[in-house]
């Protein structure tokens, strides 16, 4: 089982992600840089958080035109498992691998805090180890996390079960107060129609050891490991 962690100029959660995979999960993991043209031999590709290309033009916009992005599309089209975290999520929407877009937070501020996430589905490769409706505590750290998708597409996504995580309160209630950034329908994480490409704004790699205040992020990593085993 081999993981790839994508590194673009400006990625800054790459090493945290690498560390969790190598030292906490004890899996094989390699960095792949933006000029990489193929991802053969990997079982799962992670696009980590950060500010690829300084968020110039729009978050993820420039990264989505890099050689590595093309390789990610090819990997995904072959059914490979892809996970985008924060800036990685933004890159995946810019690439069109995931529906919607991430707009500036409603309050125009950078928000860095723990949030609660309700797991909407536990039959996906990244949530196998969660209970349906389970509430996870995982931090967010972003300026552009307001998930937006047109109403018609949102309806289709709901029907297809593409919404994986919603911002909730500690009890799992989906409320406006629990929505940190103004995302439509409190959406924090989604998947593609085919069920092999995932994106979420919260950072599971920052919540995978007790010393960091929460280990709920491990549920996602352990789900992926169990899915790939």
């Amino acid at each position: 089982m081999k993981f790839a962690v994508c590194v673009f100029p400006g990625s800054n959660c790459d090493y945290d992600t690498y560390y969790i995979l190598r030292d906490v999960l004890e899996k094989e993991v390699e960095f792949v840089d933006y000029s990489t043209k193929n991802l053969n031999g990997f079982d799962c590709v992670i696009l980590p958080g950060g500010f690829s290309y300084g968020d110039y033009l729009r978050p993820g916009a420039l990264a989505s035109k890099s050689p590595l992005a093309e390789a990610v599309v090819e990997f995904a089209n072959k059914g490979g498992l892809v996970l985008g975290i924060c800036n990685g999520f933004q890159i995946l929407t810019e690439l069109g691998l995931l529906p919607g877009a991430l707009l500036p937070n409603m309050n125009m501020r950078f928000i860095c805090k723990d949030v609660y996430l309700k797991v909407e589905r536990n039959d996906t490769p990244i949530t196998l180890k969660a209970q349906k409706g389970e509430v996870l505590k995982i931090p967010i750290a972003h300026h552009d996390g307001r998930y937006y998708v047109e109403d018609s597409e949102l309806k289709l996504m709901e029907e297809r079960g593409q919404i994986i995580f919603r911002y909730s309160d500690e009890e799992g209630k989906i409320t406006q107060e629990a929505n940190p950034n103004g995302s439509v329908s409190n959406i924090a994480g989604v998947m593609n129609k085919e069920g092999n490409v995932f994106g979420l704004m919260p950072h599971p790699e920052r919540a995978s050891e007790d010393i960091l205040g929460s280990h709920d992020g491990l549920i996602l990593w352990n789900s992926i490991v169990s899915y790939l085993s």
Partner: protein
Amino acid sequence: MKKVRVLILPKEGLLDPQGRAVEEMLKDNGFKVENVRVGKVVEMEVEDNQDVSSIVDKYIINPLIEEYEIEEV
């Protein structure tokens, strides 16, 4: 070569917090204004026969959230 400007705005109807804040500021200063949107400009020099919209559509804007006009300078 020709010089062009691409004027990019958040799509009409999309909530634009920057536009909303600027609109409120202008209203507070006594102006009657509506529908303020804050966008960005990309200026470039391209070959005379270059179809600029094909560049913009594919590389510069996200059609889900942005709209644009091209202006020859």
